[in-house]
């Protein structure tokens, strides 16, 4: 019987383990960000019509020209997209080529948005039904993908680009060379 004494403590130990698991789950900050599983894979094939006056549309072939580029997923109706506009202008000033996919947008709204917040984009493709957005594994706007010169997605930034995110994005672009 004495060698079975320790069994008495087993339920308490099991309870302690449950408490530890629950406490860990409660204290750990919840991260509900859905990241794309396409990072490390080639861009899906797409061709999107132009939407902004005087600016070409966008196709996946534009990302296979040897130079790393940013692919910004945005919309004129998206408030955080306004917040990240100055950072995109900074990146453009640093010589970074930026293309964009506009989600559920109209030429007039895009024109107003670019007029008001600046225009960092070389090309803008119109994705009215989020088809390309879904194919990219993007779960909202804004999102930014770093694409290397062979059309492989090397990094994804979910949400608006803040000023302190800019060095990291420049580094990802440099690493992609």
């Amino acid at each position, binding site marked *: 019987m004495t060698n079975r004494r320790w069994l008495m403590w087993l339920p308490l130990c099991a309870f302690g383990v449950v408490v530890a698991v629950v406490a860990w789950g409660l204290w750990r900050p919840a991260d509900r960000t*859905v990241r*794309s*599983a396409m990072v490390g894979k080639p861009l899906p094939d797409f061709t999107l019509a132009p939407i902004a006056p005087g600016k070409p549309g966008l196709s996946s072939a534009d990302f296979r020209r040897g130079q790393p580029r940013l692919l910004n997923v945005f919309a004129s109706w998206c408030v955080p997209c306004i917040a990240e506009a100055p950072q995109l202008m900074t990146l453009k000033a640093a010589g970074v080529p930026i293309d964009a996919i506009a989600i559920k947008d*109209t030429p007039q709204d895009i024109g107003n948005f670019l007029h008001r917040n600046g225009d960092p984009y070389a090309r803008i493709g119109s994705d009215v*039904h*989020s*088809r390309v*957005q*879904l194919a990219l*594994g993007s779960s909202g706007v804004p999102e930014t993908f770093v694409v290397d010169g062979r059309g492989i997605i090397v990094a994804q930034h979910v949400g608006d680009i803040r000023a302190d995110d800019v060095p990291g994005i420049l580094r990802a672009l440099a690493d992609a060379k």
Partner: protein
Amino acid sequence: MTRAAAVALALVAATPAAAQTANAALAYTQLPDADQERRARALMETLRCIVCQGQSIADSDADMAGEMRAVVRQRIAAGQTPRQIRDWMIARYGRYISYDPPLDAATIPLWIAPLLLLLAGIWLARGSFRRR
């Protein structure tokens, strides 16, 4: 069915010209083939809405969920199997998107833990009954 079609038509008529295609309607309109619609519906109920993450795309009213429903219906109508469409979604969003966990190395604890706990319970119960 005709009422649903009329509502869908009214909705389509109310949206701007740019958004007016068959794709938009598929988010809220059933497929004409009842068997295809049944398969699409079953799949939609096991795919997570990535905007409102506690809901399936069948339950959610978010725009993104609507687009995902349209993708599911389009691909089912084009002859793809629900399995292929689920794999396509998982390749884009990771396994988080699927509410239907497959049995493999990563999920084996999920499947066998209840069995192990049940066996442990039987073993404990047997011990205490024997003592009486």
